């Protein structure tokens, strides 16, 4: 039985979502050796406006190259989160940039402040997409961390390798922390019903 895994990276123009999609597709296709199709959709503006990039992964040739039911949604803006959350499968993974997405539609979302990390830790807002890519590699099984690192380093301009590698690591660490926080959230025991009644 073939599988099909659908990723949508969304946000606003200028956040580097299309480049992120390209790197992710290269990591999966070239370094991990699976079938992959990457497409994009953006407005005529260079910055602002909405922008999205989609990556489909499969173990066989991909027919329809766009996403239908998302397995993973990355939202780097509140607008894109609101717009695309309904396309996510019930057991799909939602990752948001909590710098911009303040209202998450589900408690199951992984919230990581990619842009704030980029701003404060690296003083370079442009690496937010690479940080998000690190988080994505950590949180999903479709791509290996090593493949992502190779793909990033093959794409970025010379002289910025260290910056990008550090950004990737920061993303992975942030994701790990988010995952721990999330696990803790899950094990919070529900208040037993009897106790609830007692309190009346």
């Amino acid at each position, binding site marked *: 039985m073939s599988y099909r895994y659908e990723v949508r990276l969304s946000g606003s123009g200028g956040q580097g979502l299309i480049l992120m999609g390209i790197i992710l*597709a290269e990591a999966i296709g070239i370094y991990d050796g699976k079938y992959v199709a990457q497409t994009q959709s953006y407005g005529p503006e260079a910055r602002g406006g909405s922008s999205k990039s989609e990556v489909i992964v499969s173990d066989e040739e991909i*027919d329809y190259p*766009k996403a*239908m039911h998302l397995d993973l949604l990355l939202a780097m803006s509140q607008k894109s989160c609101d717009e695309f959350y309904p396309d996510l499968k019930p057991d799909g993974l939602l990752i948001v940039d909590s710098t911009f997405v303040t209202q998450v539609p589900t408690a199951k979302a992984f919230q990581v402040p990619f842009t704030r990390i980029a701003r404060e830790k690296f003083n370079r807002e442009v690496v937010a997409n690479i940080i998000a890519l690190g988080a994505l590699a950590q949180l999903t099984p479709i791509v290996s961390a090593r493949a992502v690192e190779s793909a990033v380093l093959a794409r970025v301009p010379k002289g910025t390798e260290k910056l990008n590698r550090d950004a990737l690591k920061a993303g992975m660490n942030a994701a790990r922390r988010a995952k721990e926080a999330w696990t803790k959230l899950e094990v919070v025991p529900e208040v037993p019903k009897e106790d609830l009644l007692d309190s009346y």
Partner: protein
Amino acid sequence: MVEGALVAGCRFFAGYPITPASEISEILSIKLPRLDGTFIQMEDEIASLGAVIGASLAGVKSMTATSGPGFSLMQENLGFAIMAEVPCVIVNVMRGGPSTGLPTFPSQSDVMQARWGTHGDHPAIALSASTVRECYEMTVKAFNLSEKFRTPVVLLMDEVVAHMREKMVLPDEDDVEVFNRVKPTVPPEWYMPYEDTPRGVPAMANFGEGYRYHVTGLTHDVRGFPTSRPDEIGPFIARLHRKISQHFSEIQMAEFFQTEDAEITIVAYGCVARSARRAMIEARERGIKVGLLKLVTIWPFARSAVEKVLQKSRILLVPEMNMGQISREVKRVNPGVAKVFTLNKVDGTIITPEEILNRITEVA
């Protein structure tokens, strides 16, 4: 597409940047100079195709890439290239129109423009692609056809396919079949640049190699000079058409998917063919016998392929991202036994498999 162009022998590109075709120029601007090729950014699309025609006459395989608005500007020179029989490849990455339209959104609305955009009664070759691999293969094919038949070839792409990244392994260069124009074997003083031959395609001499001849957009005689003699005009125009029509079987490419037992056949091309393939699989899971005919050659219209499925299926569905430009052709060749339904979408988004599936259940 760039790799396809280079392996086919393209060494000249002139163009003017336009979304969603700029990437082709961008990459060629880096790669062509490394191969001793020439890359020129011209002042507009009219000049771009002019430069391409000039380079081709000098013996260099040439191409340009544009989108709807630029393709409109190229129509005049496209006609010139057909008339003067100059091989060249024109990529048109279709976007929403008319006018500036939707620069970043996909469309298939230039299908008829590729056929009848330039004036006069002329043949046209236009190919499409629906995967990254096909972009490569069809670019090679476009160059081969243009060289073989001394005619411009249009590659009709759409934003989805042109901006898509997929994994493909480039074939070994030696395995790629490349055709080069036939050069004259006679001495220069005997050379007839527009002479009729059994194939209908005269030999083509490179400018600067001693073969002097006249190139004009006026209807010309076998030497290339303007003529007003009906006994020269008629045979010339007839030959222009014949050199394409007697090779239909070689030019017309189409792929059949599960059409053998199909009651309903989808006829699609470009990115929509991918949606159609998924819709076909899902329909079959539901027990509806659906097949797919994917048109690879758009012009000349693959009549024989469509006739094949018209004999087997009782319903044909033609989904297109325009108001029905190819469905008219399908209806034209339909003798009337099968019903032809359309599915048209012009909102700048790709037709989804679900929409095709819904239409299938509607018409089934």
